[in-house]
């Protein structure tokens, strides 16, 4: 009988780590360890001898794991970045989702598939959340700047809020710029002059 695959997840955000582990548990029976980011990462992993290591591609510590591909000691198992030979493009999907997998040599690709598919789905979700968060933050900041610019125009030209916004929008259209960019320029200029 085959033993369960052992998986290490490198993730320092507790919440995200729990979510990844949950997704993997749904995909099958695995022995899973989570390592929060630490300077001795490569050695911690070597000590555990996992079959698969999963790490966020945006984590700078990923470079440390690259060291394992050079493992040459007699007790060390060779490890490679996962590259599937199948037509499914699992590797490409993984990279698009932002997750890297290191896999012990001689592990059959079909054993890795379920793990990687589950990880990809989870990381795609993280990526969507990250984009949404960044977009929301940007929108909020732009709203603030536009409000400030409107205030400046209302004061200087003695107009109502709606008219102030119309002036701003017209200036943006005339210069084929975004309203937020014109507002930003106005706020910066006002700060310099005050």
């Amino acid at each position, binding site marked *: 009988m085959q033993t369960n695959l052992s998986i290490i997840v490198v993730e320092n955000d507790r919440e995200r780590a729990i979510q990844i582990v949950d997704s993997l548990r749904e995909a099958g029976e695995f022995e899973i360890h989570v390592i929060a980011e630490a*300077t*001795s990462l*490569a050695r911690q992993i070597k000590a555990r001898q996992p079959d698969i290591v999963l790490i966020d*591609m*945006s*984590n*700078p*510590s*990923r*470079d*440390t*794991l*690259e*060291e394992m*591909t*050079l493992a*040459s000691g007699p007790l060390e198992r060779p490890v490679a*970045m996962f*590259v599937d030979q199948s037509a499914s493009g699992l*590797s*490409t999907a993984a*990279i*698009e989702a932002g997750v*890297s997998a290191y896999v012990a040599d001689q592990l059959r690709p079909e054993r890795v598939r379920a793990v990687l598919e589950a990880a990809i789905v989870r990381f795609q979700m993280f990526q969507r959340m990250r984009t949404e968060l960044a977009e929301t933050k940007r929108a909020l900041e732009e709203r603030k700047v536009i409000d400030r610019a409107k205030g400046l125009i209302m004061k200087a030209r003695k107009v109502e809020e709606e008219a102030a916004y119309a002036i701003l929008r017209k200036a943006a259209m005339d210069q084929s710029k975004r309203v937020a960019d014109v507002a930003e320029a106005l706020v910066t200029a006002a700060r310099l002059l005050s």
Partner: protein
Amino acid sequence: MKSDRLAIGFVPLVDAAPLIVAHEMGFAAEEGLFFELHRAPSWSALRDRLSFGHLDAAHMLAPVPVAAAMGLGGGGAHLDVLSVLSMNGTVIGVSNTLAEQLHDYGHSFDFQNAQAAGQALIAVCQKPLRIGVPFPFSMHAELVCYWLTALGLPAPENLDIRTIPPQLMVDAVKASEIDAFCVGEPWGSKVVASGCGTLLLPCNAIWAFAPEKVLTVRHDWIKPNTELNHRLIRATWRARRWLAQPSSMTLTSELLSRPEYLDVDADIIECALSGQFTISEQGDQRNVPGFVEFHKGAAGFPWRSQAEWIAHQLARRTGLDPQEAAKRAQSVFRTDLHREALRATAADLPGASSKCEGALSDDSEAPSHRGRVVLQRDAFFDGRIFEPLPFDPHKILAK
């Protein structure tokens, strides 16, 4: 004119300047190109995004495409080098504990004598010496290994080279995870600024003219995009030539310091570009002329012998056959494309495509396609000379 978009990746370091400058100063636009620049969180992420076709070209550590040709690391895509982007530009430093021992031993911290610094280091350090480098396939790793092996501290028995991302180097020194480090600027100076380390040597004290970063593309991308890669080579050549003018330094520092690029103070970047270092917490100053070189001495020319030297070192370190590795590596540095692309420009290129590395103990003239080109001093600290293999052009045609 509608410009062609190229997705290009870089790691936020001072030597990404040729790509950033090509974009910001209009050298890319001059060639009808639009650089869509993507900042990468790590070298492995950058390499993989290039290998899997998310990027068209990348700022890369010179040994990465060589390692790929040798079957080491990564997704297995064949990578080629169009130009060298920068020469030198890295520093070696030690923890303050080790610096104190070196002072007691009588080392002068002259910041130029690699022989003296290495011997002092070997005399006082605990074995194995633990030294942090940013990536397993990097000039940092190769130069440190070359230097200390030559002086009698062989890896891996007495030299433990560990991979630590540059931005985590300070923490690793603080946590005593490592005794020494080798890293590109501004990260070495950041260790000094944090009060836990002292700089020992610039890496050009080990090899006076070492290729550091290269412009890399996928091998299978080249053929269907001949015109594009020629334009890419020319745009970065113009950017490198502009960077070589002393008057460009201030503007370059300002450009690189922007949040979308390095997001570091312009002052720190200017120090690296001009080679001015504060090597210790006490404020000792050292000056390194030509600390990082983008253009002078045919700096951008991707010598096949450079690729071979890297392959040789990497093979010895990983137990592979050095001759076989050198053979595989020599066609990775595409002198042919570099020449073709720059034929119609004012660039003066060397007549040869391979040279004895380390043979020039002074700046020297060499034959070029216009007459003579001046090559920079490229000596190794121990005076050794590396002889390249003869080149078999049929191999490239057969590929």
